[in-house]
């Protein structure tokens, strides 16, 4: 207990000095200026774009979509073929009673989902529909559909090449399949694998500080300000205070070992997601007569948009971009979360992972988009950073109390995303710097520092940089996946033959 108290005091005093730093006049400006050239260079490289029909298309987006398309064809539409079987696995039809107490397919999926369902679904969709018109929804759904194949590939590999440590804990994800998987192909590939794994780990650490942390803190604070009186409210300039509170909570979980907070969050988050979906469906049902017109607008807008800069390409770009932001398919983060499952057939987790982009992008994003279209709240002049407020406004038209619920949901989604990403980042960090108390602590301190920074400063450059880092993860990850496709295919074919021949043992068939 005393140890805990000492730890807490250090934590709070440490965080207080962060916020003092953050409050100092002009310091955010200084940091902004200092990192801007570097951040711009990285963001510029990752998001380097080429013009198509007058629209600047970032290369990384093309990289993600091409991979997802190739995987879909290479595995012969696994996203459709294994959809039913994936559900049977999640439901536990093939659960071995003897492994009761281990991580089930359902648990692995639910955990991965709580790391991805979040601001992307709420804020991103509003931005996509506003900037790309209703038609963006169509391309978002298509991108989600193709993204299912990317998740299938990376999550199968995540389980296949995970490392089971002597103490019984599991470590998995792109770092491991890039090194161990490519090493199986010979000395040259082993070298390439190492380089890719190190690159991935560097980007993953960056992404965990940025998109998995600062962006979350920043956006949830924005929504909190939005419901507590806006810019004139008492909270408006108290970003540092908000950051301090969130950092303390995150710190209690990741440093204090107070698992209870994380455990409670992990139980409330699915509940909030269900409330969000039910509220969305309720609005859609209450305006049922407007639904056919909304779908018509989605289809027409997808192929012959009016008044959208860049025409079809412009709409397609908005839809694809927000889908990729939201479900992280091809980025490799989910492969870390999925690798904990208990199975001796890695491909089964791939089937289960199909449901991640399906739920995240096809179900939740479509509901959000329909609500925004039906309520007519989309606004082409929206500032891309005000996505949450736009969705909030759309739900408010029907349920005036919804912004408060949404605020709680956003806070919880952001919190659980931070906890997940702190784990991803830590794994990447220890992969780079070794596993010991000092590296562990240094990462966690940095992570908490960025929570305060993210909520108290307007660091446009840093936010751009962190988005870039998350997307940069897709370069080493997918490149490695291409080389490892035959491995996945072999696993898939062996399993599929057993499945079709009825050689798999069903639960309850003793």
């Amino acid at each position: 207990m005393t140890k805990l108290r000492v730890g807490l005091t250090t934590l709070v005093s440490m965080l207080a000095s962060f916020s003092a730093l953050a409050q100092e006049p002009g310091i955010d400006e200084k940091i902004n200026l200092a990192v801007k050239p570097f951040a711009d260079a990285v963001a510029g490289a990752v998001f380097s774009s080429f013009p198509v029909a007058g629209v600047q298309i970032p290369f990384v987006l093309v990289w993600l979509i091409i991979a997802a398309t190739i995987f879909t064809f290479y595995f012969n539409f696994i996203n459709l073929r294994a959809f039913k079987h994936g559900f049977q696995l999640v439901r536990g039809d093939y659960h071995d009673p003897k492994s009761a107490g281990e991580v089930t397919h359902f648990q692995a999926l639910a955990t991965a989902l709580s790391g991805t369902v979040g601001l992307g679904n709420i804020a991103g969709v509003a931005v996509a529909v506003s900037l790309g018109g209703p038609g963006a929804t169509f391309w978002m759904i298509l991108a989600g559909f193709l993204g299912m194949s990317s998740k299938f590939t990376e999550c199968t590999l995540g389980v296949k090449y995970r490392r089971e440590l002597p103490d019984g804990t599991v470590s998995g994800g792109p770092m491991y399949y890039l090194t161990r998987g490519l090493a199986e192909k010979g000395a040259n590939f082993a070298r390439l694998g190492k380089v890719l794994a190190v690159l991935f780990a560097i980007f993953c650490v960056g992404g965990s500080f940025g998109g998995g942390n600062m962006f979350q803190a920043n956006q949830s604070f924005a929504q909190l300000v939005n419901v507590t009186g806006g810019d004139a409210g008492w909270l408006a300039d108290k970003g540092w205070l908000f950051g301090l509170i969130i950092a303390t909570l995150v710190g209690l979980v990741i440093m204090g070992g107070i698992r209870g907070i994380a455990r409670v969050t992990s139980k409330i988050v699915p509940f909030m997601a269900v409330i969000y979906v039910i509220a969305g469906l309720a609005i859609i049902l209450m305006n049922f007569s407007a639904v056919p017109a909304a779908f018509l607008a989605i289809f027409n807008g997808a192929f012959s948009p009016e008044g959208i800069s860049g025409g079809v390409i412009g709409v397609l770009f908005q839809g694809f971009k927000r889908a990729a932001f939201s479900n992280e398919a091809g980025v490799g983060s989910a492969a870390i979360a999925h690798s904990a499952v208990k199975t001796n057939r890695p491909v089964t987790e791939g089937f289960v992972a199909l449901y991640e982009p399906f739920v995240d992008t096809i179900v939740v994003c479509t509901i959000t988009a329909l609500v925004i279209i039906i309520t007519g709240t989309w606004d082409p002049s929206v500032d891309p950073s005000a996505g949450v407020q736009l969705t909030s406004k759309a739900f408010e038209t029907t349920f005036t109390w919804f912004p408060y619920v949404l605020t709680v949901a956003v806070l919880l989604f952001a919190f659980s995303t931070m906890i997940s990403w702190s784990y991803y980042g830590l794994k990447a960090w220890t992969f780079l710097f070794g596993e010991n108390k000092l590296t562990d602590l240094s990462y966690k301190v940095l992570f908490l520092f960025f929570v305060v920074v993210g909520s108290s400063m307007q660091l446009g450059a840093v936010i751009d940089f962190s988005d870039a880092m998350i997307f940069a993860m897709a370069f080493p990850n997918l490149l490695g996946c291409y080389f490892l496709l035959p491995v996945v295919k072999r696993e898939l074919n062996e399993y599929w033959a057993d499945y079709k021949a009825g050689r798999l043992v069903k639960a309850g068939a003793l």
Partner: protein
Amino acid sequence: MSSVLMVGVDGSNCGGRAVEYAAEHAGKSGARLYVAYVIEWSPFSFSTVQENMERHKRREEELKRAYSEIIDPIVSRLKSEGLDVVGLVRHGDVAETLQILAKENDVTNIIVGRQGTSKLKAHVFGSVGSHLVQGAECAVTVVP
């Protein structure tokens, strides 16, 4: 078919009486007696990434603790009385898992202690005894 008994224990008094009852019957008939303990667990619960990564380790610890603190003392005591006793520990829903264990081991009679829960509580949470009586494919004895 010779009779095989299984007693479900939960570390409480009622479980203790069930053990005595089962031991008495096993002693008379010479039947094998399984002593089963179920660790409450659901395949559909929500957890964090870190919990999942450490799950296998925790599970081993939970099983070890269940054996050393609950099952082993009972098993060694009954063995010293000359009974054919085997301890079992499994994660899951109590009633469901006792049925699975019974089926796996060709048990002919499951013995459990009564919970003595109020009607309302039983309605909300269900009671192990009544679930077993209605669901099991073998005889069920509820010991008061």
